[in-house]
């Protein structure tokens, strides 16, 4: 497969991801060589599928089905909470960043133990209807909430795209 990604592309996206992460209170894995290989994987997937599916998960090629594993994935935050790293280890917590803890391979959160059903298509919230002036939108990646007619084009916290927002409170 023609997956030639040049180094300058990797460097460019790595820098962008790093800036985005730090500005939102997240951290990229300090193991630069490892992290850049993951970034390359993301770029390969972008080329291959048209979206940046997690490099450590098998993408279906159908964007709608894989929305939850587009990086940053719906499982990053709970994995950071529980293990200090996301599934592919692109993102890590402060302890790992500072070298106090080692990063390792963690279990897959996407499916239940039995392995069949996806956990309610990611971490979907149950929407409620309220008598409010504006509906409230929730970023499925980081939980950011905003009250406005439509979600922002990019999440100001985690930089996930508009399509990752779900309705949280209907008006």
């Amino acid at each position, binding site marked *: *497969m023609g997956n030639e990604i040049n180094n300058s592309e990797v460097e460019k996206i790595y820098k962008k991801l790093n800036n985005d992460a730090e500005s939102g209170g997240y951290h990229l894995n300090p193991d630069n060589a490892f992290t850049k290989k993951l970034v390359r994987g*993301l770029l390969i997937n972008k080329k291959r599928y048209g979206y940046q599916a997690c490099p*450590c*998960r*098998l993408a279906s090629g159908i964007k709608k089905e894989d929305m939850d594993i587009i990086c940053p994935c719906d499982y990053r935050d709970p994995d950071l909470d529980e293990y200090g790293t996301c599934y592919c280890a692109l993102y890590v917590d402060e302890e790992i960043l500072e070298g106090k803890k080692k990063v390792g391979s963690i279990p897959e959160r996407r*499916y239940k133990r039995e*392995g069949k059903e996806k956990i309610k298509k990611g971490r979907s919230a149950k929407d409620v209807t309220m008598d409010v002036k504006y509906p409230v939108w929730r970023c499925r990646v980081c939980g950011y909430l905003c009250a406005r007619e439509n979600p922002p084009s990019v999440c100001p916290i985690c930089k996930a795209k508009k399509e990752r927002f779900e309705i949280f409170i209907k008006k």
Partner: protein
Amino acid sequence: MKHSKGIDKGKVILYALSTCQWCRKTKDLLRDLNIDYYYVDVDLADNEKQKELVEEIKKFNPSCSFPTLVIEDKDCIIGFDEEKIKEKFKKQ
């Protein structure tokens, strides 16, 4: 399936993804341990083959995550578990 030659420790198959760095580490570890093994990068297989492989993997690892290492069609090590892999091949 690709073959990485080494010491015969029985039938060892690694299901991997070409873009996954834990899979990469698993391949490197098996090579460093000089284990004879076969591997397949499932993401690079064509659609039909991919479906077949996914079914194969699910028999050992229902969530079909990567890497999945299957030894002698019965034992399975999920994820890059360095200790477990070393232990497994030490005993045999």
